[in-house]
């Protein structure tokens, strides 16, 4: 009977995940990759919710439900985003974020 993992570990993982995602968002040029890094961040949040729900407030399921909704919405977001990226590719012939900097200052 192994003793269970403390909450802090999980939080640590999720936080790490979040910042990895953020790092990706800041550094990657490819729009798709940037979108994926955002998904990472969202997922880290999901982990948070689940963990909190499981460890601290196991008697109701708010966190889990929230997670479900986040996943759904992330999907919707991704759908729209990808549509936009495709359109961007049409007009710019590239999905490099650096190429889409016409509007500035």
């Amino acid at each position: 009977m192994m003793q269970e993992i403390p909450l802090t570990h999980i939080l640590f993982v999720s936080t790490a995940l979040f910042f990895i995602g953020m790092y990706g968002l800041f550094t990657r040029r490819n729009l798709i990759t940037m979108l994926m890094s955002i998904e990472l961040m969202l997922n880290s949040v999901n982990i948070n919710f689940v963990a909190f729900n499981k460890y601290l407030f196991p008697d109701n399921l708010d966190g889990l439900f929230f997670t479900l909704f986040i996943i759904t919405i992330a999907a919707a977001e991704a759908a729209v985003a990808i549509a936009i990226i495709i359109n961007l590719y049409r007009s710019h012939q590239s999905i490099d974020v650096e190429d889409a900097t016409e509007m500035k200052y």
Partner: protein
Amino acid sequence: MSNYFYILWIPLLPLATFVLLGLFGRKYLSGISGLIGTASLFTSTILSFIAAKQYFFVDGKVNGVFQKIVALKYTWLEFSPNVAIDIGMIVDPISVMMLVVVTSVSLMVHIFSLGYMKGEERFATYYAFLSLFTFSMLGLILSSNIFQVYMFWELVGVSSFLLISYYFNKPSAVAASKKAFIVTRFADLGFLIGILILGYYGGTMDIGLLIERFTSVSSAQYISITGASFLGASMLTWGLTLIFMGGAGKSAMFPLHIWLPDAMEGPTPVSALIHAATMVVAGVYLVARMFPVFSMDEIALNIVTYVGAASALFAAVIACTQTDIKRVLAYSTMSQIGYMMFALGISKNGGEQGLGYMASMFHLFTHAFFKSLLFLGAGAVIHKIHSNEMKDMGGLRKLMPITHIAFLIACLAIAGIPPFAGFFSKEEILTAAFHENKIIYCIALFTAALTSFYMFRLYFNIFWSMEASITAQDHNNHNLAANGNNSQDNHDHGEGTWTMKLPLIILATCAVGVGFIPFSQLVTADGKALATHIDWVFSIAPVVLSVLAILLAASFYKNQNDKSNKVATAFGGFYTAAYKKFYVDEVYLFITKKIIFPFIGQPIAWADKNIVDGFMQLLATTTAKIASLMKGLQSGKVQNYALYFFGGVVAISILLMYIWK
């Protein structure tokens, strides 16, 4: 005490004339405007004579003392319950005397101008301005409130400005008028502050009250004003000195005299009226009006005395060297006013020592007549010759006999030769000076000699020196170069119209006659009659001196010779200095053009453009600069946006956690 209210009409008639001519003169009444002006002034002259008769010989005197009668008093502008400007009329010996002087001289000038200014384009305007001046001068005389004096003071100033610049397309005239106004304005600043001082401590602006309060040593006001002091001098001294400064400005006392000679740019009758007989003596009148207060303060009186004496001498010296006849007359005016001033200065308030006061007034009176006569005579001459320069004149006695006689009488009068008017008044002054202050007496005596010298220099230069024939042909050349004062008048006239001769004759008779008026019975400091007698022994000295001076002048200038030049060269530097009016004008010019303009005016103007306004501009430009510096924030790269976003989060968290602690 009977009613003097009708005196109100004396100033009001000229005012009405001014309004009438000013509004409709140019268009409708251009032809008859001269007559209108003269008629209305004639009426006021009659009125003032009536007033004089009534005051001096009917009911002015109550048990041996001439009363101060306030004929009218209306609160015009109330500053605070007891300090106010009242429009009032005060009737007392000097005001009545001045009424007579101003109205009669002004009348003479009006008549003279009918001929002199004939055919001028702005004839109506000229008479409008004359009336305005007469009105303001009369108002000044009658003022019962020191602020009222100041108001009319300014008004005479501006009307003199308007009249000097009558030939407004002559730059020199414009410049002269500006100079006159600004210099007197500067002096008036002192006057104003003086008024403020007296009014503040006296708690009133009414002259009567002021005198009453400041002459009683025990009154609270007197104690407070003498108690308060500034830079070592008591406030009374300051107040009086500043008021005298105003008077000095108007009366062209040294060093505020510089405007008077230039003021001769105006038409000659104007010079006769304003710059010889009436306005320039306003300063003397002011001091006389406030005399009881002046007599309470030794220092102020001394200032009056020495400024007066200095100006008398100074002007006389310069007068000997000038060649422009009007300028000579101007300086002689200044010199004579100096006489009046120091006569006041050495006087006491009443009693035997009050002689100076009476003498000063007397001289003011006589001077008005013979000096205006001189100017009108000069006017007649200039009218003929079209030049002010002595060298263009000579031998005119044949061409214009009446002018010649009148001019001679006037010269004798001013030189103080008995029995002409000048003699009596000057004697009184000298007597007073002799009793009070020997130094002044010597200066006065010397000045008297100088006076008769330069007057006869003038006289001989105009009417003798060259022969008539030469002048005639000489004068024709000058017709060719005639300056455009009155371009369209015919050159073959003799002495001009009767309207120009008549005033000369009348004034000449006055110059002879007025000396015999028993002035000491009428006009004295304290209103009591003053027993004076002409001491023939005493008057030997001045008369002899004058005669000698006249003979000297005769020998120099009766017929052409170069004695005068010899003497001039003998004097050398001093002569040129005097000829250059001792460089006072240059000093003024230096101060204004070389100091005030470049070192105060321009720096301020520059600072306003570049510092004050520049600062506002700077704010704008810096804002714009900052804005353009920050534009990099909006890089257009969505990743940077996210980065800044996160940065913001971190920053706020740190800030808040920090403050939270």
